[in-house]
C-alpha cells in the first residue's frame, strides 16, 4: 500500500508540483510525522499501521497549518484518510488552509479500522491506495440514546470524573486551531483542580466542536483516562446535522454550509 503512495509522492516531488509531502515515517521503532522533501529519499515512509490498522495516526492537517504559515507561498502534499479529507475541507472553509496550496494523496482505510471508528465514509473521494470499506453507523451513540436521560448523564459524569486535565484531547485535535482557548479561561471554567470541572470542561469542548469535529477519533485515542470523547462528539455532530443540515467535511468540496453565522452578512 505504501509503495503506491511513494510512487505518487515521488512524481509530485519530481514534477515540482509540491515542495514537500507531509506523511509518516518509521524511525527507531517509532512512527511520527515527517516532511519528505527529497524524491530520492522516501525511506521509512509508512501509512501508520504499526501493530494494527491506523494505530499510529497523527493530526497531519494540524501540522500542515503550521508549515503553511511559515511557507505561505509553497504547495505541500499531505497524506489523507477519509477523516483527514473532511478535515481539509472544513479547514479550507474556515480559511485555515488555502486549497490552492494543498495537494492531498488519499488512502482508503481497511474495514477493521472503519468498524472500530464507526466511520460514515472511511475513504477520501480520491485515493491511490487501499480498497474502500463499508460505512458504519454510530452504534455507540445509539446505545447511549437508548438510555434514560438521567442515566445517560450519570454515565457521562462518571466518565468525566477520570479526566486529568492534560488537554491532550484539545492539543491533538486537527480542528482546534484557536489562538485563545476557552478551556483555559478563568472566566468560563474553574482552573487548578482535578478532575477538570465536571461536566463543564467537557461540555464546553463539545459545544465548540459543533460544526467542526470531523470524527477522526484522535482525541479518544490520546485520552489517558480512556474517556469515550469521540462518542460525545459524534452525538454533537448528529444534533448539528439535524438542526442545520450540515455535517462538517461531507458533501461537495468547497460547498458552504447551508446556514449563516450570526453577523456574517455584515462582513460582506
Amino acid at each position, binding site marked *: 500500500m505504501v509503495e503506491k503512495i511513494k510512487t505518487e509522492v515521488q512524481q509530485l516531488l519530481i514534477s515540482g508540483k509540491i515542495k514537500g509531502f507531509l506523511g509518516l515515517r518509521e524511525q*527507531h*521503532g517509532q512512527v511520527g510525522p515527517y516532511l519528505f522533501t527529497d524524491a530520492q529519499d522516501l525511506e521509512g515512509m509508512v501509512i501508520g499501521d504499526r501493530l494494527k490498522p491506523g494505530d499510529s495516526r497523527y493530526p497531519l492537517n494540524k501540522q500542515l497549518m503550521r508549515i503553511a504559515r511559515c511557507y505561505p507561498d509553497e504547495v505541500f502534499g499531505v497524506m489523507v484518510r477519509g477523516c483527514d479529507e473532511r478535515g481539509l475541507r472544513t479547514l479550507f472553509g474556515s480559511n485555515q488552509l488555502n486549497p490552492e496550496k494543498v495537494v492531498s494523496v488519499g488512502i482508503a482505510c481497511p474495514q477493521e479500522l472503519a468498524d472500530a471508528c464507526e466511520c460514515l465514509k472511511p475513504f477520501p473521494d480520491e485515493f491511490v491506495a487501499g480498497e474502500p470499506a463499508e460505512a458504519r453507523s454510530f452504534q455507540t451513540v445509539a446505545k447511549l440514546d437508548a438510555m434514560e436521560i438521567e442515566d445517560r448523564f450519570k454515565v457521562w459524569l462518571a466518565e468525566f470524573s477520570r479526566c486529568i*486535565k*492534560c488537554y491532550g484531547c484539545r492539543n491533538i485535535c486537527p480542528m482546534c486551531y484557536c489562538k485563545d482557548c476557552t478551556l483555559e479561561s478563568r472566566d468560563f471554567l474553574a482552573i487548578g483542580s*482535578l*478532575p477538570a470541572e465536571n461536566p463543564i470542561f467537557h461540555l464546553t469542548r463539545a459545544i465548540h466542536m459543533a460544526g467542526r469535529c470531523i470524527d477522526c477519533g484522535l482525541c479518544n485515542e490520546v485520552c*489517558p*483516562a480512556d474517556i469515550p470523547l469521540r462518542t460525545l462528539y459524534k452525538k454533537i455532530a448528529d444534533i448539528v446535522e439535524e438542526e442545520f443540515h450540515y455535517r462538517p467535511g461531507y458533501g461537495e468540496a468547497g460547498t458552504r454550509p447551508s446556514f449563516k453565522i450570526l453577523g456574517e452578512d455584515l462582513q460582506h
Partner: protein
Amino acid sequence: MAGLAAAFGSGAMTNSIAELEDADCILVIGSNTTSSHPLVATRIFRAKEKGAKVIVVDPRKIQLVHQADLHVRHNLGTDVALVNGIMHVILANGWHNQAFVDERTEGFEELRGVVEQYTPERTAEITGVSVEDIRTMAEWYAKARASSIVYCMGITQHTTGVDNVKSLANLAMLTGHIGRESTGVNPLRGQNNVQGACDMGGLPNVYPGYQAVNVPENREKFEKVWNAKLSDKVGLTIPGILEGLNSGSVKAVYVVGENPMVSDPDIHHVEKALRSAELLVVQDIFLTPTAELAHVVLPGASFAEKDGTFSNTERRVQRVRQAIKPIGQARADWEIIQDLSTRFGYPMNYESPAAILDEVAQVTPSYGGITFDRLEGDGLSWPCPNSEHPGTKFLHAGRFSRGLGLFHAIEYKPPAEVVDVDYPFWLTTGRVHVHYHTGTMTRNSPSLHEEMPEGFLEINPQDARTLGVKSGDTVRVSSRRGEVLVRVDLTTRVRQGMVFMPFHFVESCANILTNPAHDPIAKIPEYKVCAVTLEKAA
C-alpha cells in the same frame, strides 16, 4: 528503596506498569496517582473497567477516590499499624498463602508474633479506620487472584518510611502476591530518570547496579576498570551534607539538578548551611533559588538538547534523542562532569553517551545486555544480563533477588512530631497535577503557571469557620521551624484537624514548615507529617 531491598533484595517496582491493568485488586497507598503518575492511573482505570477492586488508602480525598471501591482515610503516619492490622485479619482467617510463606520466605514466626498484637480494634484505635474497613481490605487483597500494591511518597516520606515499605512487602509475601504477573509491590518514581540515577549509583553507598561500596570485591572491580584508587567509605546523604556544612567538616558542595532551597525540609536551616559553604557549584537548566546562592553556576542541557538514556519507574531503559542543539552555553551533564574530572587530574575521554552505556554494561550485571542499538522502539527493562536477554517484565519469579524473601516484624511508631495545644493542626504536603517538584521547569511554562499561579492551603470548611476565614483569605501557617503566608482553599478533600499544602511554590514554601526529622536508614525526611498552627493574616 532500602525497605524493598531488605525484604526482596532489589529496590525497584517489582512489576511493569501495563500489568496493573490485569490485576484483580489494586491497593493504592500514599500515591496521588492521577496527579503525579497519570499514565499509571490509566492502568488503574482500565483494571477497574475490567472489574478489579480498587482500594485507595489516603488521608485526603484524592481524585482516584472517585474510582475506588473503598476509600480509607487513616491518621497521618499510621501506615505500619494499618498494614499490621490487615495482616492480623488475614492470618486470623487463614487467608494467607502458607505454601508461599513456607517455600519462599523467612522470618514468618517473628512477623506473626508482632502482627498478633494488632487486633482490628487496636488498629482501628491507632489509625482511625473502622474495623469493618480493615476487614474488607484484608479480604479483598488476600483473596484476589492477583493483587498489586502501588505506593509513592505518602509511604516513604516519613520517619518510618523504610518500616512502611517493609510492611507492604510483608503483606505481599504473606499472601503470595509477588513474583507473578499483575501482582507485586510497586513504588512509583516521579522523575523520568530517578530510577536511572539510582541505578547508576547516584546514592552514597553504592556503585552502579546497587553494588555496595564497602564490599571489597566491588571496590576492586571498579578500581580495576577505572584505574584509580577508590574510597571504601559510604558517602553522605543530604541531611549529612547539611550537618557537615554547619559543623565545618564539609567545605564544598556540587549540586546537579536538585533544588534543596525549595525541596528540602526546614528551608531556613538549608539556607544557612548552603551559605556557609566555601564553594557552592550548581548545575541546572534554570537559575533556581539554590543556583542563586551558588559561587559557580554550570548551565546543563535540557532533555531536548541531549542524547542518552532514561530509566523509568518500571526499570525500562529508553533512548532520549537530541532534538535541538544546546542553547547558549548549555552542555550535556556528562560533558561537564567529564571536563571537571579531567581538570581535577583524572582524565575522562568518553566519546559519546553510547560509549558510557557500554561501560555501564561492562560493570553493572543488571545492565549487562543493554546497548544503544538494542534500545530502538520500546527499550529494555532490567535485569537484562546479556545481549540475548529480552529484559525482565516482573521481578522475583520463583526466587527473590536475595534468595528467600525476608519478613520484618515491625512495631508502629508515631510520627516524630504530633499535634499539641500550641500546634494543633496536622500538616501534610504533596504535589498538584500541573507542577513538578520545585517548579524549576513547570513554573517556567506560561500555560502551567496560568493553571496554578500560586500555592494554597487546603482546609476543611468546619475548621475554616472556627478560624473565621473564607475561601481566598490569607492565613499565617506556623510550625516550630518557621511560618508562611498562604491563601486558603476550603475543601472536604481534607478532614477536620488536617491541612494540606503543595510544596512547589518558593514564595509560600511548605518546606519552611516541614520537619527535617528523617528515617534512620533511608534518611528521607518526614515531609508528610508535622504540626502547625493557623491564624488569619491581617
